[in-house]
């Protein structure tokens, strides 16, 4: 006869409410772990999926995600000439916030080197989106862009959705200036030229200085964030890295280094923060379950004394308390998973329930259930059979 189940049957509503409470607590612990996994996933999503072996960025920087990076787009051609390089492509990344239908629209603009990079690695499915509809037009800078696909689960390190453009469109959005700003810049250039010998001796140059920036060969064209390099199969990665490291104007990061850069920054702090919260919640859960089990044991103290009087072994008493604690923990865990499964997708940032994490939490739940029942067991084992007479 299972006494634990019969006691639960007798106090079903109390057990149910308590289990729901524990389930909610465990759901928060589960969510903390899920938020952390989500942070890692979002931070490394692009690096993992874009399929680059090397990230070539501005010299002495750790861009383009950890910090800003600006390099000439023409570097793409220099890199193609390096032995072992199969493919190099420009990459642009920058954050943007606009008003759309009266609401703030935050996105991470990702410029892909069309047609070299057609974005086949981007998962075009429904899911977390920027709130834009397929076929909808959005105005960025002076151009209108039509939404031609909706990605699923693509977000950046800050949790903002990723929006994919061609490199040139991404740059046009990034370097777009209002007409007045362009006029003022051109006038300033004319003014500076007028004060120099060249402007005085060659007045036609003032006309050129007042023209569009793109027509001035003296000025550098807009720069990209990084050049992505894919190596030929069988190429030694370290060898290519050593070769490119001799170029003083750039910095090289392997995909793994880029990943590490992302994870050792913002994510690392968040990890510690979430980890501490999780530990606190686990401790709180343990204390709460312990108090619940202790209270449930106190309620049964007379019955436990009676069981002892009629000769019940300690294992019967321990089983009664321990089985209830384990059942409460297990059901709470199941409830936490079930509730999380439906609630977490509505959280503003991704909550990723990783199977190893779930298994770990299941183990922790069993451990805290056992630990929490110890107080009740201690109390129960100290009860004298003659308590039944009081």
């Amino acid at each position, binding site marked *: *006869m299972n*006494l634990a189940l*019969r006691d639960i049957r*007798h106090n079903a509503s109390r057990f149910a409410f308590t289990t729901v409470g524990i389930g909610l607590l465990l759901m928060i612990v589960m969510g903390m772990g899920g938020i952390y996994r989500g942070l890692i996933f979002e931070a490394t999503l692009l690096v993992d999926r874009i399929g680059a072996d090397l990230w070539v960025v501005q010299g002495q920087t750790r861009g383009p995600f950890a910090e800003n990076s600006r390099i000439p787009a023409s570097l793409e051609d220099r890199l193609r000439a390096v032995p072992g390089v199969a493919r190099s492509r420009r990459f642009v990344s920058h954050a943007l916030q606009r008003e759309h239908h009266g609401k703030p629209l935050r996105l991470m603009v990702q410029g892909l080197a069309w047609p070299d990079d057609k974005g086949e690695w981007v998962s075009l499915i429904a899911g977390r989106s920027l709130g834009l509809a397929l076929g909808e037009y959005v105005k960025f800078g002076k151009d209108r862009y039509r939404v031609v696909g909706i990605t699923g689960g693509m977000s950046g390190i800050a949790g903002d959705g990723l929006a994919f453009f061609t490199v040139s469109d991404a740059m046009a959005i990034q370097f777009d200036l209002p007409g007045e700003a362009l006029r003022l810049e051109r006038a300033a250039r004319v003014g500076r030229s007028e004060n120099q010998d060249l402007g005085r001796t060659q007045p036609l140059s003032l006309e050129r200085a007042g023209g569009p920036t793109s027509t001035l060969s003296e000025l550098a064209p807009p720069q990209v964030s990084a050049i992505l390099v894919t190596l030929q199969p069988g190429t030694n990665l370290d060898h290519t890295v050593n070769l490119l490291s001799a170029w003083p104007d750039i910095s090289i990061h392997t995909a793994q280094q880029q990943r590490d850069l992302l994870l050792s920054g913002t994510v690392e702090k968040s990890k510690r923060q979430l980890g501490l919260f999780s530990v606190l919640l686990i401790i709180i859960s343990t204390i709460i379950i312990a108090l619940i089990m202790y209270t449930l044991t106190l309620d049964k103290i007379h*019955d436990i004394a*009676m*069981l002892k009087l*009629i000769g019940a072994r300690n294992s019967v008493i321990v089983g009664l308390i321990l089985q209830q604690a384990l059942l409460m923990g297990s059901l709470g865990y199941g409830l936490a998973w079930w509730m999380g499964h439906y609630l977490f997708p509505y959280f503003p940032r991704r909550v990723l329930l990783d199977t190893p994490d779930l298994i770990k939490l299941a183990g922790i739940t069993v451990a805290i259930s056992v630990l929490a029942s110890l107080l009740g067991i201690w109390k129960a084992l100290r009860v004298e*059979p003659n308590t039944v*007479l009081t």
Partner: protein
Amino acid sequence: MNASPQQPAIEAIGISKIYGQGQTEVIALNDVSLSVARGEVIALLGPSGAGKSTLLTAMALINPPTSGRIVIDGVLVMEGADAKIDLRTFRRQHLGFVFQKANLIPFLTALENVQVAMEINDMPVRAARQRAMYLLDHLGIADRANNLPDALSGGQQQRVAVARALANQPNLILADEPTAALDSHRGRQVMELFAQVAHESLAGVIVVTHDTRALDVFDRIIEMEDGRLLDG
């Protein structure tokens, strides 16, 4: 049930129980000796504070005496406050208890309350269930077998408690004011039940009672006062 019928169900020899010490010392039992034969039903009478319940709980092995010996079924169980055997196992196998309150486990049905006593004593579940049902039937409450204690009257609860006490066919049944919560009719029924059980199963039965209306069912009546036996 490994003792011979000739052996007393219990022998309490020179039992004393002293609470506190110095100026607060109270002698609850003073050199009490008592022997109960198998199949014998005795009533223990006396005013409040006479030491009846103290003697009963000492013999029930839940309140060790300060001095004296307790021998049950020929086995020396207690010598002073020292247990000579595993008391819990011994209680499980040899003793049955009934108290003023039925003390049924509230989350078990009447049937389960009886069954659990046998399962604790390692009886297979099926056999325990059958015997529990038999006992409840024997005591006239088989129709309430699946009711929780809350749904039973005081008399019905007490009969379930009696069934539980009989479950493991004990050699000795100890009852402390078992009829206090019952009306005279029900009280008499319970007392007759003890007598019947004692005679049928050759168990010794000791009943502490204030109820003098059903004393005729007992084989022997022993009175206590100030921690001593007045008779027997």
